[in-house]
């Protein structure tokens, strides 16, 4: 069943474009967030690296893509590459240090890296615009053909295609030998060492790839909103990405997509209906999922089947 889910998700994304033509900016934000949460799924869901600092690579990618567009070349695809490289380099350099540690220390260090990045961007006003944000990003048309428009149609398709391509890449990666070894590390690092794997380097590799993908997500934000603010490094962003992933379910990729969509949709709806108490709705939703569906929303079909069949382990 799982193999059809990505196609259904793609159909939903295309359908929403036609159903909500005036909400494209919001839908594009969801797509970009899906990409960030996918990068987190690789790092946390597959490789088992507990992080609360994925925004560091997202922000690095956003600033890199913005600066690249302003000073070097305004081509969008080249900008994505710049964002990916920035995210990968930051993840590699910080990962070399962070992944020497274990458990809670890793979480603290990932938070610290994002904070340091935010402070650097804040202080380097002349380059980054500091607290005012990086302005003046003007992108060339995608592939020289499709000009970014006011309504956000091109932006939406552009983001959707980038997310779809990376989703496919991650599906391939998840089934590869490398993906299998990440699951092995997640389940039993001691055993991976005993079969000759340097767990440290394998984790660094996964963290770097995750960083590149987060960087691409950041680059998309910079290009589509034409603005990069210090918020791209925010702790809240890392934390929300984690909640979305847990909400949807880890280690399955489409869990990341579903969790992000549900979270952001609920957030959007609740915040516009009740600007004062929307956080309560989000909190209740997360609690309900964590208690009733510990493996996330993606486990709902299995849970429902079990309830209706009334039996335990029906059919296994």
């Amino acid at each position, binding site marked *: 069943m799982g193999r059809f889910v990505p196609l259904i998700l793609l159909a939903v994304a295309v359908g929403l474009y036609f159903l909500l033509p005036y909400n494209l900016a919001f839908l594009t934000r969801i797509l970009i967030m899906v990409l960030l949460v996918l990068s987190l799924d690789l790092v946390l869901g597959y490789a088992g690296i507990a992080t609360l600092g994925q925004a560091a690579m997202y922000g690095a990618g956003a600033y890199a893509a913005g600066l690249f567009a302003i000073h070097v070349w305004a081509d969008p695809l080249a900008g994505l590459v710049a964002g990916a490289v920035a995210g990968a380099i930051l993840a590699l350099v910080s990962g070399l240090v962070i992944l020497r540690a274990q458990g809670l220390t890793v979480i603290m260090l990932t938070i610290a890296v994002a904070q340091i990045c935010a402070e650097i961007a804040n202080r380097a006003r002349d380059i980054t615009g500091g607290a005012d944000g990086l302005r003046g990003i003007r992108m060339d048309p995608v592939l020289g053909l499709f000009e970014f428009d006011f309504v956000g149609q091109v932006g939406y398709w552009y983001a959707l295609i980038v997310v779809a391509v990376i989703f496919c890449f991650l599906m391939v990666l998840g089934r590869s030998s490398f993906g299998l070894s990440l699951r092995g590390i997640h389940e039993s690092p001691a*055993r991976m060492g005993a079969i000759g794997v340097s767990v440290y380097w394998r984790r660094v590799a996964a963290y770097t790839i995750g960083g590149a993908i987060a960087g691409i997500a950041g680059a998309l934000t910079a290009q589509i909103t034409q603005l990069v603010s210090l918020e791209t490094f925010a702790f809240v962003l890392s934390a929300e990405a984690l909640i979305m992933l847990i909400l949807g379910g880890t280690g399955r990729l489409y869990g990341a997509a579903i969790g992000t969509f549900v979270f952001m949709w609920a957030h959007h709806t609740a915040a516009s209906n009740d600007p004062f108490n929307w956080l309560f709705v989000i909190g209740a939703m997360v609690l309900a999922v964590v208690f009733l569906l510990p493996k996330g929303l993606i486990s709902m079909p299995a849970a429902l089947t079990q309830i209706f069949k009334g039996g335990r382990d029906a059919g296994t």
Partner: protein
Amino acid sequence: MQGPESKGLEVRGLSKHFGGLTVSENIDLDLPPGARKALIGPNGAGKSTFANLVTGILPPSSGTIRFDGEDISALNEPARVRRGIAKTFQITTLFPSLSVRENIRMPVIERKRLGYSMLRAANGDAGTEAEVQTLIDQFELGPLAERPVDSLAYGQQRLVEMALTLALKPRVLILDEPAAGVPSSETHLIVEAIERLPKDLAVLVIEHDMDLVFRVANSIIVLVAGQILTEGTPQQIAGDARVRELYLGGAHG
């Protein structure tokens, strides 16, 4: 340095201290190809520490470990595994939610250095799959191959544990209490699996179950308080008054 005839593993003067506590002292041990040796001793004698020193999980305080003449004392665990020194775990350490087949596929992939292959499916290599199937057949795990290992009986998990380690094609194999926790009705599975190991493989069994030790080993080393008390054939060991005292007088006194 590698001569025409492999010398196997040579341990000389190996010691390990934790602060002021000596857990291994001046241990000499040879494990040539084809050896079937057992390491026995009371609880706390330092058997597992010795295994961890040989496989590189712990660094020795002093002494050398040579493998085919090469000093490997300073190498870490993955590097020693790649040279052919492998160990099974005292407590089963598998990938619990992965299937038997995936568990065994993992070491084959890593031995072939395919662990960084990102675009080809893990089960897409015919040679790897054939090798995995051979191991599954060898340990008679066929009917269980697609089941997650945490759904298997403990004795069966021990077999997966051995298959997984054997998939590394080791030249030295250390079995750390292969029958620990296995009900006596299933112990024969372990004994048979050990008897079927490749003939040129050097095997060191660390075990409490004397019955198993006497059936699989042709040389027994007795470790007491981190030191080798004696080494000999099963008959010599069985007739040794000091060993009898350790196992009969001391333990049950």
